[in-house]
């Protein structure tokens, strides 16, 4: 299995995208969107930025399936921690969503 060398152009593009994402998130943070939209937008941008870093800077896009499974399972387990804990708090009246 030969190693894939990511081109300089890809790195620069991703970097610029991350910068744009940062500017966007600051701008969006200052706008008053209705309801929970502020946090949804902020988290979406953060997830996109993180995904770009994972796929291109961390080479997951060019890595074996095993690495991809390893990384996704961490996210899955985090989801377990969150959902099951929230199942308790939500049904105890904690979230006024």
């Amino acid at each position, binding site marked *: 299995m030969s190693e894939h*060398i990511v081109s*300089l152009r890809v790195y620069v593009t991703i970097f610029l995208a991350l910068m744009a994402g940062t500017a966007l998130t600051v701008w969006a*943070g200052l706008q008053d969107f209705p309801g929970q939209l502020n946090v949804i937008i902020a988290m979406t*941008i953060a997830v996109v930025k993180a995904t770009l870093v994972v796929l291109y800077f961390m080479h997951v896009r060019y890595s*074996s399936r095993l690495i991809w499974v390893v990384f996704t399972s961490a996210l899955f387990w*985090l989801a377990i921690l969150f959902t099951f804990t929230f199942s308790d708090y939500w049904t105890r009246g904690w979230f006024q969503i």
Partner: protein
Amino acid sequence: MAEGLAIEHEVSHPALQHHFENMEQQREAGALGMWVFLVTEIMFFGGMFLAYTLYRTQYPAAFASASNHLDLTLGAVNTVVLILSSFTMALAVYSAQLGRRRNQIICLLATITLGLTFLGIKAVEYHDKYEDSLIPGRLIPGRPFNPEVQEHGTPYDKHKLHLLPGATVKNVEMFYWIYFAMTGMHAIHMIIGVGLLSVILFFAWRGRYGPEYHNPVEISGLYWHFVDIIWIFLFPLLYLLGRHLEHL
């Protein structure tokens, strides 16, 4: 011929460790090892993100007020600094893959410098919190959590805490507790990262890394990018919570 044919070792690279069959296996093991370690880091920070999410939804006004008191400019600059350092780290790995020793050194040096810049700005922010008596509880003996609250109608004072409707000082203290726990843990990881990269820089300067062997640069890069990703989430969650409510 019975089972158990011996497999001869290839002429080995000096960096090949004795228990691996070949460099490819060593590289694969190293990368997988770092990824598994990053999984543990994700779960580690996850606990704090859980606490944050829980209490933020419970005390939205207090958390927004507390967040607004953080310095957005410094936070944003730090975000840019860290992403830039991720970029230079990726370039360092790229240089190692191509065997360009001088570029490796420059990129690693840049990454380290940017990392130290981040930590310096963080130190400034922490100092500001200290000045405004926002260090939670009695962590600093003699300077308990005791911020001055901005009263309505008085001129804007950036050292005073502006409470949004519904916010209490006790819950603001909780925000700062979580803030220091999360950014403090993040900073510790950055310090470890800077140390790690300094070691890598030393060996890069000695010319150890090239196209056939650059594993340590790659896996250090993975660690560094991970620390960047944590901040990518910390920044909006801690700094951009309630900016849109600042006019209240």
